C-alpha cells in the first residue's frame, strides 16, 4: 500500500518582475507585475512503505519544492498528496510526529547555543519519547553516528559534517516512519559521505522507514535507492528502477577490455573508444551488438580481462536532461 501518494501536484510561484530603470521602478509602485514560475507541474507518483526512492534533477527542477510540499512546509497551488494518510500541508500533529525532513544546507534549526544532548532532550520532550526509548535510541544513534564526542558540544560550534550527524540523530530520535532527505551529503567530505550513506542504509533496513532522497551525487542514489524519479522543469521525466533507467534511456553498454600482450589493434573497429590507456580500453557499444563484439574480441585478440557494464548513471541522467529522452517505466 502506498505510504506517499501524489496526484497532479503543482506549485506555481508568482514572482514580481519589472523593467530596469527609474521610470519602471516608479510605475511598479502602483502597478506590480508578476510572472508565474512553474516550479512543479502536475506530478503524480506513489511510494510504498519501506521504499527508498531517489529524487533526481538539475538545480531548479522542483525537487526541494516537492519535498517541502510533502513535508507540509509548502502548500501546493493545485493537486493532491497524502503522506501516511494525511494531507501534509494541514500539518496535523499526528502527521508531524511521524515524519522528518533533513536539509543538507541546514541540518539543524533552533537554539544553536544548546549542547547536542540538550537538543536531544528537547526532542524527547517535544515528541514525547519515553525515558527508556530515549536511552535506547540515543545509545544506538551515538554508536551508529559516532556522536559521543559531540554530545556535550554546542550546536553552533559544530562543523558541517558534525551538524549533519547531530541533525540525523535529532531527526531520528523519535523514529519517524517517513524521511525526507534533501541533499544530505552537500558539502561533506568523503569520510562523512560514506558514513552517512552507510548509516542511512542501515537505518532504513532495520526500521523499515520510507525515504525520499534528493541528491546531486549519483553515488548517493546508487548506494541507497533501488528506484529513482527524474524531475526536470517541474515534470517527472522518469519513474522506475535504476537498472531500467540505463536500459531504456541508453542504447549503449560499456565494454572494458585489457589485452594480455602488446598488441595495438584498431579499437574503433569494435566500438566507440571512450577511455584508453596502455593495454586497456573502454568501448561504447550498441546493446544489440555486444555479443558479436565480444565474440570478435575473444577471437581476434589475446584478452587478459573483459567486462561489460551499464554506462555510468551520471551520463545516462545527463543524456536524459540534455536530450529529453524520456521513457517512464
Amino acid at each position, binding site marked *: 500500500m502506498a505510504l506517499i501518494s501524489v496526484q497532479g501536484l503543482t506549485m506555481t*510561484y*508568482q514572482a514580481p518582475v519589472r523593467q530596469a530603470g527609474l521610470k519602471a521602478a516608479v510605475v511598479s509602485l502602483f502597478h506590480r507585475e508578476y510572472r508565474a514560475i512553474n516550479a512543479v507541474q502536475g506530478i503524480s507518483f506513489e511510494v510504498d512503505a519501506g521504499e527508498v526512492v531517489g529524487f533526481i534533477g538539475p538545480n531548479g527542477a522542483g525537487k526541494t*519544492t516537492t519535498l*517541502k510540499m510533502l*513535508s*507540509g*512546509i*509548502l*502548500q501546493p*497551488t493545485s493537486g493532491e498528496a497524502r503522506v501516511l494518510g494525511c494531507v501534509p*500541508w494541514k*500539518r496535523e*500533529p499526528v502527521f*508531524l*510526529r511521524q*515524519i*522528518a*525532513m533533513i536539509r543538507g544546507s*541546514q541540518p539543524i*534549526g*533552533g*537554539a*544553536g*547555543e*544548546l549542547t547536542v544532548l*540538550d537538543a536531544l532532550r*528537547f526532542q524527547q*520532550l*517535544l*515528541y514525547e519519547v519515553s525515558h527508556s526509548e530515549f536511552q535506547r535510541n540515543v545509545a544506538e544513534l551515538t554508536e551508529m553516528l559516532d556522536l559521543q564526542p559531540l554530545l556535550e558540544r*554546542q550546536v553552533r560550534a559544530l562543523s558541517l559534517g558534525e551538524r549533519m550527524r547531530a541533525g540525523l540523530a535529532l531527526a531520528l530520535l523519535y523514529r519517524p516512519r517517513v524521511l525526507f532527505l534533501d541533499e544530505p551529503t552537500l558539502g561533506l567530505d568523503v569520510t562523512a559521505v560514506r558514513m552517512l550513506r552507510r548509516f542511512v542504509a542501515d537505518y532504513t533496513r532495520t526500521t523499515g522507514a520510507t525515504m525520499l532522497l534528493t541528491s546531486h551525487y549519483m553515488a548517493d542514489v546508487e548506494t541507497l535507492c533501488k528506484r529513482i524519479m527524474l524531475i526536470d522543469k517541474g515534470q517527472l521525466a522518469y519513474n522506475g528502477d535504476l537498472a531500467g533507467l540505463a536500459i531504456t534511456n541508453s542504447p549503449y553498454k560499456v565494454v572494458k577490455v585489457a589485452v594480455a600482450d602488446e598488441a595495438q589493434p584498431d579499437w574503433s573497429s569494435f566500438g566507440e573508444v571512450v577511455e584508453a590507456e596502455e593495454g586497456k580500453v573502454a568501448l561504447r557499444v550498441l546493446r544489440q551488438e555486444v555479443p558479436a563484439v565480444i565474440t570478435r574480441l575473444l577471437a581476434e585478440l589475446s584478452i587478459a580481462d573483459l567486462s561489460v557494464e551499464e554506462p555510468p548513471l551520471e551520463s545516462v541522467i545527463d543524456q536524459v536532461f540534455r536530450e529529453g529522452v524520456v521513457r517512464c517505466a
Partner: protein
Amino acid sequence: MRLIQLLAINTWREFLQWMAWRAFLITMVINQAVTPLLGLAVWSAALPGRTGISTYYVALLVVQLMTVSYEHHTFANGIYSGEVSHELLKPQPVVITTLGTNLALRIWHLLVGLPIIIVAGLIAPLSFELRLVLLAIPAVVLAAALRFLFTYLLALSAFWMQQAHGVVGFGESLIFLLGGTAAPVMLFPEQLRAVGEALPFRAMLGLPAEIAAGSLNGAQIVQGYAWQCIWLPVLALAAIIGWRRGVRRYTAVGG
C-alpha cells in the same frame, strides 16, 4: 495541559539558549531600563516631593522588564532566515516557540535587571502598599499578554515585507509615548487622557504601575482592567488572522 507543557519546554530551551548570550542580555536590560529611569529623573525634578511619581516610575521599570517583547528580533528574523520552516515541521503550534522565547527573555530581564530595580528603589523615595501591589499583579500578566500580542502582530509583517523591524519600532514608539513612559497617562491633558486610557498602550505598560503606585481609585482600576480585557481578545484575534494569512503566504511563495 499539553500546551502548557510545550510552553514550559520551549521556555526552558530558550532560557538555556539566552544564558549563553548573558553579555548581550545586560545591554538589552540597560536599554529597556533607560527610559523608565529617565522618566523617573525628569518627572521627579519637574514635580519635586511627590512620592507617587517616583513610586510610579520604579513600578514602571519593573513592568517594563516583565513585559518586554522582541518578536521583531526573534520571530521576524526566523521568517527572513527561513528558520520558521523548521518550526513548521514541529508537532506544536509555531507560536509556542515564540512565546517560549518571550517568557525566557522576560525572566532573564527580571533577573539581570534586579540590581537596577534595587538601586532605583534605594535612591528614589517610594511608598508601596502591599494591597495595591497584589492588585496590580493580574494587570501585569494582562499587560504582558497584550504587549506580546501587539509586538507579535507587528512582527508578522515580516511575511509581507523586509522591514518588520521598522514596523515594530514604530509600535514601540507608540508604547513609549502613549503607554506611560514619556509621561504618566494620569498627567496627560484631560482630553488626551481619555484617549490614552482607552488605547491599548497604557494597558500594556502604564496601568499596572499606576495601580501599584496608588495613582488610581477603585473605579479607575476597574475601568483599566476593563480596557485590558477588551483589548486582549481584539489583539488575539488580529494575531490569529495575521498568522493564518502570513503562513498561507509563506507556504505559497516558498519556505
